[in-house]
């Protein structure tokens, strides 16, 4: 009896997923633990492993296809075994996921982030639709004579741009000839292979700028035009785009920047290191953020413009940059953790993010985010608030600078931080007090001595 492979349900908030890549083809032998396929949810890309040994008998969900979680995506069994086709496959039955990277923690998710997710998920299809309209190959009903059609095909131009002079605006050969003359097509020089490539790739020759001898259109020119065509962004990118646009459009951002003298902290960290206590600078910053948020709960709140929700937990989002975009894993209840625990959780989450193994639940529900670009030699930057949060802290590089200390110019290691706060709830003075609290903590070595 063939085994059913389901689209895994990855946490509470995910309703559908897209298969981006099949690692096995129909007929391949599959071992338990082999990666079967990769899925992209609206939060991340994950690898899904097989729970069974056998042969991949049938794939029901092709690459780039999106289906609800718990849908049947494939069958695994003995070679030659009969399997039902897609239509009769059981869909969305609450069975246990047979392919999943790790069991999702069935933890009740707070109401707020779920709401956030719902508002985020809706714009995605809209983005897709608008791109599809913009794509040049979108077929529309075109009245064109066979001779004109053949000529258009032979010349590799887009018939939609040609005005028809026949009945009901029908395009006839004469119109195409006039169009070619009027657009300067007849003066173009086109390398034969370039023309073939344009035809094969649905590129209008008139869109291509020639760079060969005397402006001749060469293969490389067509390749350039192909590269310039609008392409649907990955689902992850679309989500990033819509969240950022939503945040920047709806949340009035307010920015406060301060410079923090890290010199003493850096030397204290060295001291600790000599005693085999390894705490990263980031950990100190995160701990200081957690303490400051506890002092200023309004920065750890969220608002929809009508109600404000205070969060008793500091669920700290940490921005991690990946090749495909940004993910924000969340350290839950950060105020309950020791610095060592905070550091370990952060490391584990970042590692999971880099290897694409973050579960959606591990990326949702943050109340405040820290974005650290210290490793990129940036002097200062400001970040955009994650929707559903009250603020985000942008941490820049620590740079040696000439600073006035006690009336004398000294070389100190200075780090700029910029708080972006939701101005609807966070007043300017509150924001300023928050960064001042953060600064005084990071510059207070006695405080750290009392903590470690």
């Amino acid at each position, binding site marked *: 009896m063939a085994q059913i492979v389901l689209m895994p349900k990855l946490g509470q908030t995910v309703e559908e997923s897209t298969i981006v890549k099949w690692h096995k083809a129909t007929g391949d032998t599959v071992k338990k633990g082999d990666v079967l396929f990769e899925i992209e949810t609206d939060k991340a890309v994950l690898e899904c492993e097989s729970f069974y040994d056998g042969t991949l008998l049938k794939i029901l969900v092709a690459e780039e296809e999106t289906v609800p979680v718990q849908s049947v995506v494939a069958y695994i069994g003995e070679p030659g075994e009969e399997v039902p086709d897609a239509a009769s496959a059981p869909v969305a039955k609450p069975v246990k996921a047979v392919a999943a990277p790790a069991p999702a923690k069935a933890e009740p998710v707070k109401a707020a982030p779920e709401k956030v997710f719902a508002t985020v998920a809706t714009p995605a299809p809209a983005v897709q639709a608008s791109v599809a309209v913009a794509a040049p190959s979108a077929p529309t009903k075109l009245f064109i004579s066979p001779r004109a059609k053949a000529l258009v095909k032979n010349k590799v131009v887009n018939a939609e741009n040609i005005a028809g002079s026949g009945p009901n605006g029908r395009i006839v050969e004469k119109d195409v000839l006039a169009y070619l003359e009027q657009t300067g097509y007849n003066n173009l020089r086109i390398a*034969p*292979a370039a023309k*073939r*490539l344009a035809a*094969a790739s649905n590129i209008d020759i008139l869109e291509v700028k020639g760079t060969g001898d005397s402006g001749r259109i060469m*293969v490389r020119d067509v390749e350039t035009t192909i590269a310039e065509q609008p392409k649907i962004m990955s689902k992850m990118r679309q989500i990033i785009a819509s969240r950022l646009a939503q945040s920047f459009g709806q949340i009035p951002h307010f920015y406060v920047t301060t410079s923090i003298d890290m010199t003493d902290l850096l030397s204290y960290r060295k001291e600790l290191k000599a005693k085999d206590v390894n705490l990263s600078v980031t950990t100190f910053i995160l701990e200081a953020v957690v303490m400051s948020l506890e002092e200023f709960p309004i920065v750890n709140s969220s608002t929809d413009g009508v109600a404000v929700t205070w969060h008793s937990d500091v669920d700290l989002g940490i921005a991690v940059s990946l090749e495909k975009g940004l993910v924000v894993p969340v350290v839950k209840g950060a105020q309950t953790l020791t610095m060592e625990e905070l550091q370990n959780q952060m490391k584990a989450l970042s590692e999971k993010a880099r290897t694409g193994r973050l579960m959606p639940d591990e990326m949702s529900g943050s109340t405040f985010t820290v974005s650290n670009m210290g490793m990129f030699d940036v002097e200062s930057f400001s970040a955009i608030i994650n929707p559903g949060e009250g603020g985000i802290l942008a941490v820049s590089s620590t740079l040696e600078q000439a600073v006035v200390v006690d009336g004398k110019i000294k070389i100190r290691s200075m780090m700029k931080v910029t708080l972006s706060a939701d101005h609807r709830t966070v007043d300017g003075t509150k924001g300023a007090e928050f960064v001042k609290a953060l600064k005084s903590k990071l510059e207070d070595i006695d405080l750290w001595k009392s903590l470690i």
Partner: protein
Amino acid sequence: MEKFDIVVIGAGPGGYPAAIHAAQLGKKVAIVEKEIFGGTCLNWGCIPTKALIASAEKFEEINNAAEYGIKVDKVSFNYSNVVSRKDAIVSKLNSGVGSLLKGNGVTSYAGTASLESRNVVKIAGKDNLKIEADKIILATGSESFIPGFIPKSPSIIESRAFLAMTKLPKSLIVLGGGVIGCELACMAAMFGVEVTVVEMLEDILIILDKDVRKAIRSNMEKMGITILTGEAMGDISATTKTVKGKVGDVEVKAEKMLVSIGRRPYTAGLELENAGVELDERGYVVVNDLCRTKAANIYCIGDANGGPQLAHAATAQALRVVDNLCNKERKAMEMLIPACIFTAPEVGVVGLTEQDAKEQGIDIKVGKYNFAGLGKALAAGATDGFVKWISDPKTDQLLGAVAVGAHATDLIAEAAVAIRNELTVDEIGNTVHAHPTFAESWMEAAHSVHNLCVHSVVRRRK
């Protein structure tokens, strides 16, 4: 100090065309040469080797005259006459270069150039002076050399000394089965020298596709050349009379050894550091895609910049660099450089090879046609060889070509035109090629890309 718009250093196939072209475009130009006009190509490379090979082929042809129904008795050669014929050709050509330079108004200086600064060139030798230059074009080329691990001996020579010999040895080891090594090995073998080629890599002429290499190697072996590949030569020792060494377990021994394992860029004594011109870790001048060095007004063309070490590549760069300078343009160098190898049989190759495509993961379709199917080849008694097209299956674009066999080095010109202008397989197939000629093979090979070649039996498609 006299001031020039452009000063060219080196009068080889890169330098002299650069100087003449710039002068023709109205610039005030000087050229500095430390030896003889024409550089390696004309004096110790392309031309003299081809002169010797022509004599060798003539000798071989006469020896095979009986095949054509011609009786020739007592054929012999005098190698010193062969060499003087070569020398006459070379001197005719290099005096020709001299008069071209003069006639086009280029000022020539004889001496070794060095850079005193970005704009001042110091000349030492027959002429001793300093000149000022707005732009400088380095065209100093490369030189053959014998690496340090090989003992110094009059019996061990590199290609330049080989060409100067007035007497052929009875036996010869050729160390390095690249282009120069294989060409001279074939030449010597045709004159009856017992030749052994030693190549460390898995095959001779490794840049070529396997089928091409096989055609050359089997013919060279038929000519009596021993070819040892896949192992380096060790235990090399030499006296004035013999050279010997070991290749794996095989002992090789000969009267002379030709070392042809590469060339090195010629930059010594140029004092490039005074102008801020940088070299890479192998000693080549670092240039960008417009052949400009790290010093903004100094360019480097030809062998010394680490590109393909071919005379025509240097000439093409010369003309483009000068055009860019004079017309204030930024046109890139021509990237499609054909290469010709004058072995027996000879080879012409241009563009993508099958092994390149495999390495780069490019999907290709190949069409091949053997000379054995050509009436002309049969008539001429030259049925060994073939031509091959490499094409893009998606668009039919011609991406590469190779010809091996009679006239291959001339045949490749058609392929270069087709590939540079991005023609398709069909267009070559539809171009009427005169009958009976060797060039027809391109048309037949184009037809066979689509399995539609009339003059070959096509396996039925399933």
